[in-house]
């Protein structure tokens, strides 16, 4: 069955219009709990009440208050809706940029773009042209009454649309007061650490990483349901001042692990020694047991 679209409209670039629909590209599969009273598990519901009167207030009687600094300015929901963008059903691509120029930190929520009736051919032309040129379209559109800056780019062989963060939403490094970091690490340390990075180099295989926390929480739920108790967390000691010793020991450990194949559980994510690209064997599931060894 085809998925349900969350938005229908038109994508425009130049004078070309393509009827499209949008689908959420991600799903949140983390375990979600219900709010309950801790003492007896009674389900919690939310009630809107007047701060002074304590009386319940119907949603239709609720306005929005804006704190002006000296008092509260009240706006109705209709008045706030006047801030919605002008062309509600269009994704307008205003310009294109080289994809490599955009740091991934700007990308936010992702959607898959599908073609609506009549748009199939133009969709394919645009997709192919984007793939070929390595460009990303930048535009704006209104989703759920909020105008968004968006990027249009090929994702997994289809057109994808991603909302973008605005530059002023990113915290710049110079805003932090940091301890003096001028003292450069010794050359020998850099060389050794570099070697360690090389040994841990591998190919990015997203399907090898699983949400083990979700599994762990499920196990916890099962254990608790059976009336078992759960153990508390432990901490790892931080490295002392002897950086060189730690680096040497790490290199040794990785070499050993490599020598013995998969014998050591520490490196379950299959780091390879050779940085050259060679086909790797069949993907093996990430081993779940990790030793506290380090």
């Amino acid at each position, binding site marked *: 069955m*085809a998925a349900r679209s969350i938005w229908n409209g038109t994508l425009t*670039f*130049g*004078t070309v*219009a393509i009827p499209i629909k949008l689908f959420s*590209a991600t799903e*949140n599969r983390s375990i979600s709990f219900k*709010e*309950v*009273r801790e003492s007896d*598990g*009674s389900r*919690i519901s939310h009630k*809107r*009440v*007047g701060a002074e009167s304590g009386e319940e207030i119907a949603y239709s009687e609720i306005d*929005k208050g*804006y704190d002006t600094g000296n008092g509260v300015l009240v*706006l109705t929901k209709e008045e706030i809706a*006047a*801030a919605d963008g002008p062309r509600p059903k269009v994704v307008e691509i205003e310009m294109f940029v080289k994809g490599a120029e*955009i740091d991934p*930190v700007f990308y936010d929520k*992702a959607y*898959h773009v*599908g*073609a*609506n009736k009549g748009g*199939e*051919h*133009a*969709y394919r*032309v645009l997709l*192919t042209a984007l793939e070929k040129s390595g*460009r990303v379209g*930048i535009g*704006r559109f209104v989703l759920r009454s909020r105008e968004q*800056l968006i990027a249009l780019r090929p994702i997994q*062989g*289809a057109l994808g649309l991603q909302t973008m963060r605005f530059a002023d939403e990113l*915290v710049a490094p110079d805003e932090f*007061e940091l301890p*003096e*970091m001028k*003292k*450069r690490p010794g050359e020998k340390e850099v060389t050794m*650490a570099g070697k360690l*990075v090389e040994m*841990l180099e591998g190919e*990015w295989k*997203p399907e090898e990483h699983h*949400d083990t926390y979700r599994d*762990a*929480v499920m196990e*916890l739920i099962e254990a608790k*349901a059976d009336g078992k108790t759960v153990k508390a*967390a432990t901490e*790892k000691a*931080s490295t002392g001042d002897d950086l060189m010793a730690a680096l040497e020991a790490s290199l040794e*450990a990785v070499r050993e692990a490599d020598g013995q194949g998969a014998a050591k559980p520490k490196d379950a994510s299959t780091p390879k020694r050779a940085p050259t690209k060679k086909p790797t064997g069949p993907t093996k599931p990430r081993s779940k047991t990790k030793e506290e060894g380090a």
Partner: protein
Amino acid sequence: MPPRSMWTGSLSFGLVNVPVQVVGATRDHDVRFHMVHRAEEGGTAERVQMQRVAEDGNEVPWSKIGKGWELEDGRMLVLSQKDLDSAAPEKTRTIDIEQFVALSSIDPIMFDHPYWLLPAGEGEGAVRAYTLLLEVMKNAGQVGIGRIVLRNKEQLVALREQDGLLSLTTMKFAEDIRDPQDTGAIPGGEKNEPSAAEVKDAVALIEEMTDDWRPDSFEDRHRQRLLGLIEQKRKQGTIDLPEPEPEPKPQKAPADLMAALEESLAKARGNKKPRTKAREKSEA
């Protein structure tokens, strides 16, 4: 003011442990409203609060709220924060870098929320280890892949050097990304196959419309409009509501795509005359 630290622990890279703290790398400038109860003529609007109420009607303070999980037999299992913390014991205070990969091999769709990773504490050893990792990551041009438990959830994270600091970005799991083909709306088939001429024109148009990526040049217009409305209401006491616009008709795809592409291209090139008339697709 820079964001506050939300996590302190150590970054472990081989057997080297670097004390670090995690701080948010984003801030929102959203215009914030709170709920008020519409006042009668001349009255003052009363502030409205959300109240958490149990099934027996009693209010429950936030500190007495637990996490409930409904078992198959209908019982409600209650978990506390302490219970949940124990689900990933050895990871709550450590980020283990498991692997290094090329940044370009990760599609940005995998990235979720960005954070900065700063050295924790003033100890010389700690700062030195941080600087070392920073330098090595920069040299290698690689991204470290590891895990962290943030806000109660184990996250896959990518670490890299960015503007002279280490950054940490939470990542999605592959199983959380939908396959676009599952939408049933990705056009395929020979019928929709683009011709070489169409692609050439589309690429030319894209190139003509290409500019540098200047993130500073984009402003949050929704926010500006909201602030404008607030200003209007403050000064005039009312807001001129716009005439409700009719639901726009969905635009149709151009019947002659080549013609539309060439027209756009001509426009993009500064309203010069179209260089050619629309050509037959068969030319390809």
